[in-house]
């Protein structure tokens, strides 16, 4: 099996989890009672939310949940538009990412989930519980309409259906949904935890990973275990041992953004803006999410710019990021921020 380490060594049940031991014990206890509420699991990306959801499902239904298959479901919207969505399901649960279909997520919620929730599960063996589980990933990307559609379904069919929502941020989830769920926060693992995990993983792969490098990696990954593992593997693949490495190879887009930040700080001129616009476009067309661009750009700028400017810079960044979420065309706001930053730097250099 040629698999990436992340996927290869992913924990399959509660006993295999490496961190947040206390929390996983509680979850295990919760699941052992047949009756458990709707769950809303949230936390930063790479913290292990999905892993924990799978653990819960396995605890509930046994190894049968690991036999997954994918399904294409077509739903017809009221305006007669056919919407297709891919579901991942086992015999016991179904996993849907409604935000795949954008603004039609409400139809998915209304039709698909309702259908699933309405039908009773026919039990064939003793192990199974008498309810099905619907996993909604990226619940924070649900539109407000869809969330409202979900409210009633959650209450009405709670007898034969449980929902597990997975979200990175709690704030976009409407309070009505929050109050119907048991909120479980999965915090990012600490650098130490990440380092140990990296080391144990490497041991399994028969590679020796120096602790210093593991910690270095963990620091760079910013609490994202997935990224840490992937990078770790990438380093290993590049040249079989970790000894030669002085610096950790960054993903190309991050390197690109850092360069861009340098560019801004170096020279504030109109020609520069034109070039930066091109670069921003390149980032966007490569599928880098604008929020990520923004965040990384600001981070890179903050690292390098004059300290006195930082508060203003962050303030402006907040303003434009907010506008970007409100608006349609990301480039406009990114560009506006860049020019604003240039102005700030220029003013600073002038006063000095």
């Amino acid at each position, binding site marked *: 099996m040629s698999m990436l380490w992340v996927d290869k060594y992913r924990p399959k049940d509660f006993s295999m989890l490496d961190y947040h031991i206390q929390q996983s014990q509680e979850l295990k206890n919760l699941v052992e009672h047949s009756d458990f509420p709707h769950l809303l699991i949230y936390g930063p*990306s790479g913290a292990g939310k999905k892993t924990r959801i799978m653990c819960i499902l396995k605890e509930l239904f046994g190894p049968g949940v690991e036999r997954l298959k994918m399904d*294409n479901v077509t739903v017809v919207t009221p305006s007669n538009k056919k919407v297709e969505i891919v579901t991942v399901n086992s015999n016991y649960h179904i996993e849907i990412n409604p935000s795949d279909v954008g603004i039609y997520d409400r139809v998915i919620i209304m039709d698909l989930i309702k259908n699933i929730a309405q039908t009773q599960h026919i039990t064939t063996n003793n192990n199974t519980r008498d309810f099905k589980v619907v996993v909604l990933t990226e619940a924070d990307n649900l539109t407000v309409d869809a969330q409202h559609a979900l409210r009633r379904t959650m209450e009405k069919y709670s007898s034969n259906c449980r929902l597990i929502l997975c979200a990175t941020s709690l704030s976009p989830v409407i309070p009505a949904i929050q109050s119907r769920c048991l909120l479980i926060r999965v915090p990012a693992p600490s650098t130490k935890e990440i380092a140990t995990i990296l080391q144990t993983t490497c041991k399994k792969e028969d590679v020796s990973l120096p602790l210093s490098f593991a910690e270095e990696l963990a620091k760079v990954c910013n609490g994202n275990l997935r990224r840490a593992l992937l990078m770790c593997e990438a380093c290993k693949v590049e040249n079989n041992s970790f000894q030669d490495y002085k610096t950790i190879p960054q993903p190309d887009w991050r390197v690109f953004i850092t360069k861009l930040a340098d560019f801004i700080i170096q020279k504030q001129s109109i020609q520069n803006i034109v070039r930066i616009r091109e670069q921003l476009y390149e980032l966007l*067309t490569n599928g880098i999410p604008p929020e990520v661009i923004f965040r990384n750009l600001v981070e890179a700028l903050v690292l390098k710019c004059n300290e006195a400017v930082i508060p203003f810079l962050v303030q402006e960044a907040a303003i434009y990021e907010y506008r970007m979420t*409100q608006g349609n065309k990301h480039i406009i706001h990114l560009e*506006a921020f860049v020019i604003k930053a240039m*102005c700030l730097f220029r003013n600073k250099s002038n006063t000095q």
Partner: protein
Amino acid sequence: MSQDIRNMFARLSKKSTKCKTPKKDSTIIDSDDDIVEKTPKRTKNVSKKHKTNVISSDSEEDSKKTPKKLKSSHSTPDLKPLNLDDLNKPVKQIKPSKTENKIDLQTPKKEKKKKEKNTELGIHKNKDFEKTLMELDDDSNDTILMDNIDLLDKTLEEALHNNSNDKAGDNLKQKTYISEDEKMPKGSKKRQRKKSESEVTPNKKAKLDYTDAEVDTDKEKWEKRRHSAALYQQYLHRGGPKKHGQKEYPKGTSNCLSNLTFLRTGVLDSLESDEFNNLVQEHGGRIVHAVSKKVNYVVVGDQPGPSKLEKARNYNIKEISEDEFLDLILTKSGKQPMYAHNNSEDVGTSGSVEATITKIKEENKSPEKSKNENSNKEAPVKQKESFKIRDTKNKSDLKQLDFKDTNKLKVESHSKTIDSEGFTSREKQNNGHSSESKLPEVVKIKSEIASPIKLSNENLSWTEKYKPKSTIDIIGQKDSNSNMNKLKKWLENWHKNQDPERRKKLPTPSPFNQYDGEWYKAALLSGPPGVGKTTTATLVARELGFDVVEFNASDTRNKKLLHEEISQMMHSTTVAGFISVEKNINKKRILLMDEVDGMAGNEDRGGIAELINFIKVASFPIICMCNNRDHQKMRTLVNHCYGLKFGRPNIQKVKAAMLSICFKENIKISPDALAQLIIGTGGDIRQTLNNLSMWSVGEKNLTSEVIENESVNSKKDVVYGPWDVIKKVFNSSENKTMTLSEKSRLFFYDYSIGPLFVQENYLQVTPDCTGPKNDKDREMLIRKCLAADALSMGDVVESKIRSSNNWALLESQAFYSTVLPSHYMSGTLGRTNFPAWLGKNSQRNKSLRMIGELYSHARISVSGDKFSMRLDYAEPLRNLLVRPMKTRGLDGVRDTFEALKTYSLLKDDLVNLCELLTGFSNPNVFNSIDPKVKSALTRLYNKEMVHSFAPVTTSKKKQTAETNLYGDENEETFSDQETEDNINDDTLIKVKRTGKAAQNNLPGTKGKGKGKNTESKASKGKAKK
């Protein structure tokens, strides 16, 4: 003296019976006598009321009556035609006559009496009443006082007040003596009437007549009054011109009457006073209203004012009739007189006014006779009419009679005056007033009825008024190869060309060479509005003698209706020929389909198709007209029509035509201004004319400044494309003068793409910096920053608009996205770029879609969301897949394949993944792989890959893990063989593989393991060959 009068009556009565001149318009009542005659035959009702007045006068001045009559008879010859206008404003004229009359009386007396009168006035507060009183008392000495007062330039009213003193008492008498009326002799009746009539007319008028008379007795005064009253009544009721509109205006040179001054008196034969004035002024003459030595001609009409005539005669001014006047115009402009001759016949038959007037001069008494005759004849008829009827009829009669039958009217007016004598004096006053007030109304009605033709001509809009009357007049169509002439030629030869024999020989036209359209059965005139398409078509058709049947947008022109109407038309003849004088029935018809581009919508469904069918079989020419022949709707029609494109006419030509119209309408406009106006309307002649006619109402003198302002308003709205808009937004030369609203209007030309243009190009602008020069860069940066900030807000607003359909926010967006950037960045715009966002956005969508596919395929084995797939997974995954192939070549293919399988990815996903990671100037790793290796992978993939899911692109069927495993095992054996076999012939394999891949993709649902097996076998076979 009294005898004389009786004799006269006798004579008149005799004549009246014999008189054969039937309905002479007795206009001027020179003497009282003619009226007197009517009275004897009055019914009692009428006479009763007269007597009230008479009594008063009788009681006081019985003795005076006889002398009065004498005088009146004497005075008649001296009477001069009074201009009735003068009667209305007599204050000044009064003075001389009255003073002459009674100057001998003493002034002190006057004053005394004044006071007395005033006191008495207090008793009778009603002014009318007072007036009547005073008038009744004219004979008394008090008149002297009154006259003197007049001398002192007092107003008429004051004079009246003064007079009224003595009459209060008289009034009482009137009432008491009513019963005695019937017994009154004829003479008294006459007197009564005189009084009553004089009451109506202010005293003064009569006096003119007496300027010469030295002996003035009270009776004379009575006579004068009565006379003037009659005149006034006549004036009130006199009719309009008898033959209004029947005479042609003479066409004289424009200043043939220069230096000549005209005075008109009386009602002319065919000209209204306005028309007369216009006519004189047109020919350079001058009009005056009062007689003076400067007057060259007095044009005398029906019922001329006696005083004017008198005066004119004193000054030896030449008196001419209307016809003579018209002839004068002709002779002065060097043409043959033509009116007088015609008119002389009229005199004989209908006895025109002028004739009578001229007679007046020669023999003074003849008019009297004629009038008497008239009155004698008609009075009896009128007398029978009851009092009421006449009163109620008054108005309506006036309207009718005025216009046509002046004779009747006069009789009516006479009888009315007579009747009114029967009223109390007060009532008479009222009557006088009311009839006065009616006068304008009557005149108005007259003008309405009398001149329908003239009115309609004035009401025409200029576009109709100056419509070309013949093909030669059409602006810009004079060239021999102009559209008009082409059309003419085509139409002329139409019937000849449509002969089947001949038509065969004609060259089949192409869109580029239509051979003068000989082949076509229909013509299509196209061009912008207002250049004369319809005019050309109708005029050409008319000049060639076609009967025109027109359908335009106001007719419903759907398939059915067109079919009915046109087929009817094809099988019928027109009645136009019957109506016209020539009685020739015109077989030539033409169908005008105006505004064919308006044939649209449900109403006219199928209309154009039907029209084309008709064109194919038409037996008569068809002319279609449209604005835009390139329009989608016109596509089919264009192929069946001889295309004539009307361009915008040359400005110079339009200008020349407009200038001539301006001259006709008396508008002064500078040629430059006119040219500007024409440019403003884009050569639209119709609109130019409309604009001109609108402004002509305001001011007749149009300078180019005014036009410049106005032409801004009259400019047709032009829609700018985004490329023009962006220049206006940023170029300071273009937007310097713009107001805010104009700037925001720029946004609305196309608000979907406009903001994108602004966003794309604001960086290219070099703004006009206002700050210090050394800090120019910084200022520019700040300006850009502000602009970018505004754009950012604009985007937020736009998002709100689109998501919540709140289109009211567009104004705000206009400010953020266009006005503010324009304000900050106004300067010089460099090269304009098309918004890159559109392309970039679709690129971005593409990569997002690829990520999405990748994610959905790998979803089973991968945790995390879409973005982590891109940000974190993508690169390691790619490395995992590509590295084995890259490092180990063919040996690595198996590893890669396994990796694909574990992540359940398609081969396309691998390609996509590599493509996705080519950004940031990275090379595409997939391309660097040896093609052999790639092809090996493809073969392996095609043979062995069975997915645990049905990829979205191929099918919806799912496959379980079990079947998957099973299939794998089966196929592995084949694949091993194949790879060994076919390593060498790459090219051949490639071809097959693509074919197989296609097969695999299309019918992929067929069978699972089985299908794959057959395919792989087939490929094997081919490879072996």
